[in-house]
């Protein structure tokens, strides 16, 4: 098997047995990026020097006979809304095109001290607003399974890089599906952890009450390994929660006999692609075959999740993005007359249209006279949605749904119609409103394009999601299939 196809565990084994050095591994990945990324365009920036420098340190450690950690020497890449000290962090926006943070996000720091090798920063929808990575302020990323299709978004670069084996794993962020939907479109494993499980410090905010950082990997096991390194309470993020960090690997290789899986009927409603529906039913049959008890259930307020999400997320975004004003850092418009025109021109010139649309929507939702009807109402809906999930989890260990109603769509297909675009997150958005963990994993294919299934769990029950996902993965071969791009090399 090719080096780039190996899992974290396999690569770790190769490193400790000195069959490959960390520098060789990094070079292999860098070669792969050079070779394949001109087509996929997942990377905004490749940090070759950083990668090779860190890899050399790991090799020295191995040479000294020291033990290395599970992620030590393993090459990875980060969504470009995660602050990296001394390394440009753009959020795929012209606004931050030349912004070099003086500090790293907590999750990034944790990976760094775990010995991770940073290959580069990954493309995304500008400020994480979008579902296709077409809203990048720089260029669109292509789906490795079909270069004419989108990789999903907003963590499209993160999902595409893993699918194209340009990085062993990546981190993305998920506000309304931004890890899971691209994972589904690209046939990889993506987890949105429980809100508060991973520190948001250093994650450039889109919507503070919804944002979470999570891992995107080739396999469930890899995902569990990465998650363990990035979770935990952080005093710098007041919304992060103190909890005992489980050894997620212990949830793997467990059977799922008697495990209760709820299937919310609202997630199989109209708009769901027939092919995707078939894949999901086959997946459910597989899980039943493994001994799980599958039952239909209802999350009655699901239809209100999308509007509530677009009010809450944009309201928070309108405030979070106010700091980009050209005064202290980032883009600054030239030839401005006074401070007001500096603000206006800077923001008009440097934000893309989707970002502007969401800032306007959020500003409107918070305005005097509309607050009660929109923002406050949306918060009430949020509570109802949380109640839906709480009630469902009284009966079920996990819930299961499609991750997205369709497979990856064509580049340009929906970019003119934001509402249709928003609907690609219809299955993922409620989960962020509820704050619960959710994982997307490959469940099958429709016309050669991957389909993801979404597992949802109780707060901090990521381990249970891994247990179900691993059981499914071990009994199917979807995760072993590769895009022809990889098999045949770049065109």
């Amino acid at each position, binding site marked *: 098997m090719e080096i780039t196809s190996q899992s974290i565990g396999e690569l770790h084994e190769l490193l400790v047995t000195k069959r490959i050095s960390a520098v060789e591994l990094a070079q292999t990945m860098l070669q792969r990026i050079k070779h394949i990324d001109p087509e996929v365009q997942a990377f905004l920036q490749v940090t070759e020097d950083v990668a090779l420098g860190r890899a050399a340190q790991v090799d020295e450690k191995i040479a000294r006979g020291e033990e290395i950690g599970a992620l030590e020497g393993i090459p990875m890449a980060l969504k470009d*809304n*995660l*602050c990296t000290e001394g390394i440009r*962090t753009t*959020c795929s926006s012209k606004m*931050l095109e030349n*912004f070099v*943070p*003086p*500090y790293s*996000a907590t999750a990034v720091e944790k990976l760094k001290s775990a010995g991770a090798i940073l290959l580069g920063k990954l493309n995304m929808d500008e400020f994480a607003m979008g579902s296709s990575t077409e809203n990048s302020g720089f260029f669109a990323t292509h789906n490795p399974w079909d270069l004419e299709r989108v990789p999903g978004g907003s963590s499209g670069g993160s999902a595409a890089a893993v699918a194209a084996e340009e990085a062993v794993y990546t981190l993305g962020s998920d506000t309304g599906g931004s890890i899971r939907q691209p994972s589904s479109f690209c046939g990889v494993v993506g987890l949105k952890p429980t809100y508060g499980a991973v520190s*948001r*410090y*250093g*994650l*450039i*905010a889109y*919507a*503070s*009450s919804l944002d979470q950082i999570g891992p995107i990997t080739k396999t469930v096991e890899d995902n569990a390994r990465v998650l363990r390194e990035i979770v935990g309470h952080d*005093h*710098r*993020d*007041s*919304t992060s929660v103190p909890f005992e960090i489980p050894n997620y690997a212990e949830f793997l290789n467990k059977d799922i006999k008697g495990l209760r899986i709820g299937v919310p009927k609202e997630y199989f409603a109209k708009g769901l692609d027939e092919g995707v529906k078939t894949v999901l039913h086959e997946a459910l049959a597989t899980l039943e075959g493994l001994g799980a008890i599958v039952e239909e259930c209802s999350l009655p307020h699901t239809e209100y999740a999308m509007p509530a999400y677009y009010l809450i997320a944009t*309201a*928070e975004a*309108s*405030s979070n993005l*106010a*700091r980009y*004003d050209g*005064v*202290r*850092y980032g883009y600054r418009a030239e030839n401005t007359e*006074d*401070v*007001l025109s500096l*603000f206006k021109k800077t923001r008009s010139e440097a934000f893309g249209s989707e970002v502007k649309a969401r800032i306007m929507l959020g*500003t409107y939702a*918070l*305005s*005097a006279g509309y*607050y009660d009807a929109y*923002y406050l109402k949306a918060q009430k809906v949020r509570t109802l949605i949380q109640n839906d999930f709480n009630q469902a989890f009284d009966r079920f260990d996990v819930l299961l749904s499609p991750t997205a109603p369709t497979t990856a769509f064509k580049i340009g297909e929906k970019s003119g119609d934001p509402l249709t675009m928003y609907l690609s997150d219809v299955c993922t958005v409620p989960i962020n409103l509820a704050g619960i963990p959710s994982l997307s994993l490959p469940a099958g294919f429709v016309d050669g394009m991957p389909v993801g299934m979404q597992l949802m769990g109780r707060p901090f029950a990521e381990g249970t999601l891994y247990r179900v996902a691993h059981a499914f993965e071990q009994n199917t071969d979807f995760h072993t299939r590769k895009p022809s791009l990889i098999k045949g090399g770049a065109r």
Partner: protein
Amino acid sequence: MSILDRYEMVCGVETHVELATKTKIFCNCSTEFGGEQNTHVCPVCMALPGALPVLNRDVVNLAIKAGLALNCEIAEFSKFDRKNYFYPDSPKNYQISQFDLPICKSGWVEIEIEGEKKKIGITRAHMEDDAGKLVHSGETISTSNESSVDYNRTGVPLLEIVSEPDMRSIPEVLAFLEELVKIMQYTEVSDCRMEQGSVRFDINVSLRPRGQKEFGTRTESKNLNSFSSVRRCLEYEISRQAELLDDGEEVIQETLTWDEGRGITLSLRSKEEAHDYRYFPEPDLPPLIIDREWVENVRKTLPELPAARRERLKSLDLSDYDAGVITSDKALSDFFDEALKGYTDAKNLANWIMGEYTRLLNAQGLSVEESPVKPLQLAALLGLIDKGAISGKIGKAVIEEMFASGKDPDVIIQEKGLAQISDEGALLKIVDDVIAKNPQSVEDYKAGKKQAIGFLVGQTMKATKGQANPGVVNNLLRERLDQQ
């Protein structure tokens, strides 16, 4: 007929005090005043992408303390909200404040005007972060070619204290503000240094014809930073509003700015132009839950408040006026209490502190904290006078020397040979000498002009350079003259 015969003034005040914490409200940067520009900053207070606020617990402690001192209820559940507006001194372009659920509410402050006590209601008090400081090349931001921003003050914790519209005269307003500032200083919630802008007042005022129930239309004058500005601004606003009302015109509800130089208020924005701050709950901070144990622990740290201290001083036989002067400044009041540990005559101590001590302190331009004379040294001096070791007159010379050298009074008396002569044997010789030299006065005395003895006492004092004990001299003279 003066304005306030025709109209009743209605006034409420919003006071912003800087809380006396070492570090800022949402990060660990220093709150110290006057550092080099942009040196007390970090990713959080500069609002770098991805930086998050973390609430400083000391800020909450001080807010609770202030609330208790202002007789407020301390909310078990309060939260922070974002107040959104664009201004270059605000790096986030929103302020983290408290909107509908403030930490303190429903309190009061008692003031006293000409012996009449009155409670001024406190609607609420809430925590928020301060903005940075703009430095313009010209006079204002709109007339400058360039402006720079100093973010040292960004994120310094503030407590905004909102009063009820309970004040009906300028003296009431001033008495309230003075009492409020004193409470903040006594509790060490804030040092309230007006010159550093660590306390600022927004004055809401309206007039209504005497006898009318409804309030008139009010104006709000922003950012006054001294009592004298408040007084002048109110005087100006009242006469301006009265003139409008007299002419049958309407007062426009607007926000004003006080022009200190010209002594007038200027319109900042009208009600229609008021900002829509689009408040919403701060998603980066969880709600603030304050259990009762926390409140009680803070209550234990409450010192004696100025009103209580005034009452205690009065119980020590000080007049209302003296008790008021001594407690007007916490440092002076602390000085008094400390001196009282070494000297028991509170009234005499107060006289000395308000008299000689304050005079000499002012002459040197020093604050009480910088005083070269320590409380127990003053106490020792007064003890020496009472004991008769020196006269009161010599005492005044000694305290001057204490201010100059910082030495203890007994050391100064020793060094300068200022000890009072009470020894009868030593004084008798001098008394006899004075009698011999002033036969006329002696004759006057014997002829029944008893006041003639005063002259002879004076001559004896003169002969001893003031060191003789005047009581002893008086007795000796009478004895000698009556014997003759």
